[in-house]
């Protein structure tokens, strides 16, 4: 699919150096009716956009997924516009809107999606404004159904993530001259809570809680500590995308059997 030498009436291609913003420009042109899906110049745009995402020091997931989704839809719209139309079904009405073909419907969906993204941004502003207000007793968020503390993932997802960590942990105990300190679940629970309280925004990744642990024993004890905290409702665990990083934060305590100096 070439981005040059397009059919007459095709959009000349986006201006400006930023391919991510260029996608927005194309969408606006489609909305104004100034662009024909068949004439979209997409090859160079998508290549530049992907190159930019790859070269970025830190991948902005939201920006990347937004670009990929919109670019994919533009490509789909162009492909459908270039393909010959399907033969008309018998007795189809002459002014049936579907006569415009799937391309028009796809463009409509694309533009509708853009509108909903803006609506989501408005909801975000309402959310942030309302978070500055507190009713008596503070905010009590509804407890999630199912296993308390898990948001956007199941227990199986947690086990899968643990399995990845387990496979990396060493089977052999490292040689030591100093007697090894026993690691208890209680001690790990206290350490995890300390880590969460010191973390920026009070949230850490699941993987980071296992950082620096060389042996399988340490990995097991840490995982047991996490499960115990989830069971007690002390942790909220969430995963925003499938197979994505699991994020952990502390919840308001229901009871505190793991207080410093408490029984293990």
């Amino acid at each position: 699919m070439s981005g040059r030498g397009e059919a007459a009436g095709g959009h000349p291609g986006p201006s400006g150096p930023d391919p991510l913003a260029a996608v927005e420009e194309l969408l606006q042109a489609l909305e104004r009716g100034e662009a024909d899906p068949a004439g979209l110049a997409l090859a160079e745009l998508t290549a530049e956009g992907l190159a930019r995402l790859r070269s970025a020091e830190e991948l902005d997931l939201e920006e990347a997924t937004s670009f990929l989704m919109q670019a994919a839809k533009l490509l789909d719209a162009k492909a459908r516009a270039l393909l010959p139309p399907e033969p008309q079904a018998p007795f189809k009405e002459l002014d049936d809107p579907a006569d415009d073909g799937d391309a028009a419907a796809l463009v409509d969906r694309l533009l509708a999606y853009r509108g909903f993204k803006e609506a989501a941004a408005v909801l975000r502003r309402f959310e942030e404004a309302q978070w500055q207000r507190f009713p008596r007793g503070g905010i009590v968020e509804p407890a999630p159904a199912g296993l308390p503390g898990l948001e956007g993932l199941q227990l199986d997802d947690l086990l899968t993530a643990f399995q990845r960590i387990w496979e990396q942990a060493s089977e052999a105990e490292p040689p030591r001259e100093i007697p090894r300190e026993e690691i208890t679940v209680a001690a790990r629970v206290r350490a995890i809570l300390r880590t969460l309280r010191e973390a920026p925004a009070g949230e850490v990744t699941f993987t980071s809680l296992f950082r620096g642990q060389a042996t399988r024993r340490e990995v097991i004890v840490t995982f047991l500590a996490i499960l115990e905290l989830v069971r007690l409702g002390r942790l909220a665990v969430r995963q925003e995308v499938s197979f994505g990083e699991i994020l952990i934060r502390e919840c308001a305590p229901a009871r505190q059997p793991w207080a410093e100096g408490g029984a293990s």
Partner: protein
Amino acid sequence: MTSPDQLALHGLPLNRLVPILEALLFAAQEPVTPARLAEAAGASEAAVLEGLAELRRQLNESRRGIELVEVAGGYRLFTRPEYAEYVQALLQPVRAYLSPATLETLAVIAYRQPVTRAEIEAIRGVQCDRALKNLLERELVREAGRKDAPGRPILYVTTQAFLEYFGLRSLADLPPPESFGGRQ
């Protein structure tokens, strides 16, 4: 403007009704409708509305730490936004913003309700299982019957909790769809 010691509608003095309403709103754990306040206070709804206006005036004039807010079809007392940092220092709330994917899903439901999962996914172009599950768990949306279509898919709508969460009086407080760039 009605003087506080004058009689409100149906006989209850404003300067007696206003503190009653303040006490009721302080005790309530959720927004309270004027009808419910009237029932509890033994006054008419019209008097309650007058009393609420007076309570709001008093709270605003003296710049008290709390304000009266109309939300989710009722009224509730909240701390003022300008004192949020102090309240946060005390409560240290642990809250998670809704993710972008969840917000987009919620925006589709808010503007297109009642709407099925397939309709949401057709607009967003991706699956929305996790986002929908998250919204159901947080009680920001609920199931509202099934669509009369093949497969009888479940319909989703927003809830009262949705209005409270975003500080809206009703769905009419949402910006009109035509104010957004895309086609809704």
